């Protein structure tokens, strides 16, 4: 049975019916990983023995219909979420030997629901990047075209799902790091409202923007995984006090009369013709489903990327200051004194892009520059939130392309600004803390997937998932990567 082709929903049904056991399923995925990983290179550390052991424990539970909503389902985790006893590297040399003595809250929650961890996925170092090329360890290839990047920073997670290496994966999204690779790899990527999923144990890049979310084959799968990982966590002060939800409820609800705004700023220069054509198609589909789609405006759109790089770099420079070679992780072999220990360790341990952001962050927080950069960026942040609030007074959802173009070729974007521009459609959402999903909506002339982004009000995950699911049904099945 080619279980790797199944959606999460189908997998759960097969497990329930006893047509496949957790052990078989896990072995199938391990075989699949072994067969495609040489091409895709999506994974850092694997945990196959432990996974097989856990799967055996799950066999009996699943037989009895116990074990949680993800009982017996193998998954892959971005390598910036802490796993007790298993290396968590953030694809950085500086954490190359770091084994956490604790689990991230999402890991505990998935374990509680019976999911089985297979491996940690490659990523841009400390989640800084849009192609996974900033990994200190390896380049991950796009399953649809191995010469192209999978996007980033959750490139390993997105590629692993597209390549059928697991039933689902978790990524993290600071400025588009789930949605952009999802769009590039033809899978679903959901970034929940800031505070819906606990950040405890997620190695911080930019704390006020980071959010964990699922990468899956379908919208329904995304809803299942979100149901498992969402919820208040007293270990995370920024997590929202809320009841747990079953996000799969109401997915099939009709969307007739739903009001969708399409900000005109997303269609200015830089948008590729293929992407525009696919979005136009998606809009037509929504109209045919009874949705009211209208042009709207997000006047502060042009300032979002600048504000994002100031805020995220400021937070990153502080979050990454703990990697000093004193307590854990990499330490330079040779140093003359404590200051030299810091310098050598950080010079050798961090990659180029991470250093660039650290310098940028230090600059914008320096006394004398704080007001002109950090404070101003925070003001812009407030304005961007207000822009979204205004739109949501009139509309239930915002629809946009996820990225200006499809996945680019490895090594193609050497200029950091060109790389940063690939996130231009996704960063405003993080700045406003909103939920958004990327759903495949077409193929380009080069046969690469194109993603559409649906953005909702805070805590409107159900609306997004409902609208996404209904669209997906109308769109029909999406081609799998041929590997």
């Amino acid at each position, binding site marked *: 049975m080619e279980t790797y082709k199944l959606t999460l929903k189908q997998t759960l049904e097969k497990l329930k019916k006893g047509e496949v056991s957790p052990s078989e399923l896990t072995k199938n995925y391990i075989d699949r990983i072994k067969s495609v990983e040489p091409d895709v290179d999506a994974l850092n550390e694997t945990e196959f023995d432990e996974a097989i052991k856990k799967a055996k424990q799950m066999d009996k539970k699943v037989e009895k219909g116990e074990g949680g909503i993800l009982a017996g389902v193998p998954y892959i985790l971005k390598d*910036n*979420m*802490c796993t007790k006893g298993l290396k*968590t590297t*953030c694809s950085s040399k500086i*954490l190359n030997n*770091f084994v*956490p*003595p*604790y689990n*991230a809250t999402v890991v505990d929650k998935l374990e509680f629901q019976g999911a089985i961890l297979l491996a940690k996925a490659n990523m841009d170092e400390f989640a800084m990047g849009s192609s996974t090329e900033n990994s200190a360890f390896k380049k991950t290839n796009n399953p649809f075209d191995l010469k192209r990047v999978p996007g980033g920073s959750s490139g390993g997670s997105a590629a692993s799902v597209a390549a059928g290496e697991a039933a689902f994966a978790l990524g993290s999204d600071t400025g588009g790091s789930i949605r952009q690779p999802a769009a590039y790899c033809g899978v679903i990527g959901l970034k929940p409202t800031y505070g819906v999923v606990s*950040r*405890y*144990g*997620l*190695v*911080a890049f*930019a*704390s*006020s923007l980071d959010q964990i979310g699922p990468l899956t084959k379908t919208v329904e799968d995304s809803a299942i995984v979100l149901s498992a990982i969402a919820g208040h966590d*007293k*270990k*995370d*002060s*920024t997590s929202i006090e809320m009841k747990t939800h079953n996000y799969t409820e109401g997915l099939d609800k009709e969307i007739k009369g739903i009001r969708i705004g399409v900000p005109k700023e997303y269609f200015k220069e830089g948008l590729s013709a293929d992407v525009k054509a696919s979005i136009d198609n998606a809009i037509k589909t929504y109209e045919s489903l009874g949705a009211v789609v209208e042009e709207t405006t997000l006047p502060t759109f042009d300032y979002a990327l600048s504000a994002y790089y100031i805020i995220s770099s*400021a*937070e990153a*420079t*502080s979050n990454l*200051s*703990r990697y*000093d070679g*004193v*307590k*854990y992780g990499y330490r330079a072999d040779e140093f003359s004194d*404590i*200051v030299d220990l*810091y310098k050598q360790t950080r010079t050798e341990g961090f990659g180029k892009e991470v250093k660039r952001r650290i310098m940028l962050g*230090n600059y914008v*927080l*320096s*006394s004398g520059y*704080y007001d002109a950069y*950090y404070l101003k960026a925070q003001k812009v942040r407030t304005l961007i939130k207000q822009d979204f609030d205004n739109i949501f007074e009139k509309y239930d959802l915002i629809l946009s392309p996820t990225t200006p173009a499809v996945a680019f070729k490895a090594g193609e974007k050497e200029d950091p600004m060109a790389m940063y521009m690939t996130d231009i459609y996704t960063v405003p959402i993080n700045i406003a803390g909103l939920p958004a999903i990327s759903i495949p909506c077409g193929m380009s002339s080069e046969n690469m997937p194109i993603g559409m982004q649906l953005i909702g009000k805070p805590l409107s995950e159900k609306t997004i998932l409902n609208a996404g699911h209904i669209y997906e049904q109308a769109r029909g099945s999406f081609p799998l990567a041929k590997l």
Partner: protein
Amino acid sequence: MKYETVVGLEVHVELSTNTKIFCSCANEFGGEPNTHACPICTGMPGVLPVLNENVVEYAAKAGLALNCEIANFSKMDRKGYYYPDLPKAYQISQFDLPICNNGYVTIYTNGVEKKIRILRIHIEEDAGKLLHEGTLGSKVDYNRCGVPLIEIVTEPDLRSADEAKDFLDTIKSTMEYIDVSDCKMQEGSLRCDVNVSVRPKGSDKLGTRCEMKNVNSFSSAYKSIVYEAKRQIELIEDGEQVIQQTRRWDDEKGKTFAMRGKEEAHDYRYFPDPDLVPVVLTDDQIIGYRNSLPELPKDKKTRYINELELSDYDAGVLTSSKYIADYFEQGLKAYDNPKNLANWVMGDLLRILKDEGILPEDMQSDPALMIEALKLVDDGVVNVTVGKNVFEESFKTNKSPSTIVEEKGLKQISDTGELEKMIKEIVAANPKPVADYKAGNKKALTFFVGQMMKATKGKANPKIVNELVIKEIDG
């Protein structure tokens, strides 16, 4: 030229909450290195801080006790600097919106009352400790990481080392009263940075200041101010300039040494901590904290003067330490002569503590022992001198005063027959003092009382002896 010393203080007080400020580790002094530490207080990747509510409550209470305004909205910020005892390489503190603002402390120095303004009080976390092992390098103990602190920052209102010392004593006593810190200096729960400048007397312009670090006791604070003011005056007198800098106080050498100048000052790159939400206190919460405050030293002193009819001085001494006041008040429950009890507490208890090198907060003795000794005196079982000696022994051995009196046979001799016999002998053997007394020198009487005490090893009832001597001589 005459100079005036201007001092501002930054006092760090460790709060005595059960757990640390951002994690559930025990907030305890000591312990084997790194045994009160967890992934959160050691800043491991991915962990998040959660602010301990009790820290907010304690800080607000401290602010209220020091007459501050409590902010309805304050926030936590990150203060960035690299040091091995600071595992995140930033300290979580409060920068521009602290929890308490604009307070004051009233001090009495050499009988003069003065208000010292408090600019602000903010919440922050303590760092760990470095254990230097010479050429072998250094080790880090993270036990103290995340111990909650408040930093009390004064305006430059202090004008001498004496005032600074009185201010610190008042802070310590107030923190003890409201029970937010154990204020143990030797364990570092109260530390301060001292800012000193000098200026010509009469000038209203502040001179260039120097900040002194590593001031770990009140006596060091005193000495460092005296030293630093003298150093700055000498510089000015020599036609040189005081340079704004941070200086390290060396307690052994009794000197300050330059650490860094203004140009090398750290840029801490403060910014709001995105892992924490703002600290919001409603007016009701603040009123609740205010109502839960115990009687503060100033109010207690007034009560002692008005209700117990103690002198201003006595009331001041008794209330200077919560532990002494507690002792006194517990004693009062079983003894209704406040003045007498006050005399014993001030005269005897404080002397014994000083002689024995015991700090009031470390005192274990039950006030019941003093009351028992006092009652033995009041009931005429022993005289005052013996009573006080018995108390001292009781304090040291924890034996009950009655047992001591019993065991040592210290009961007063009030049997007039026995005493008369002894007096007869002494009077007969000392004709000269008898003559003196008869000649009108009443003081000569004390000679006989003294002799009787000697003969009875202090056990004679002095009142009875006095009467009997007069009777014997006058016939």
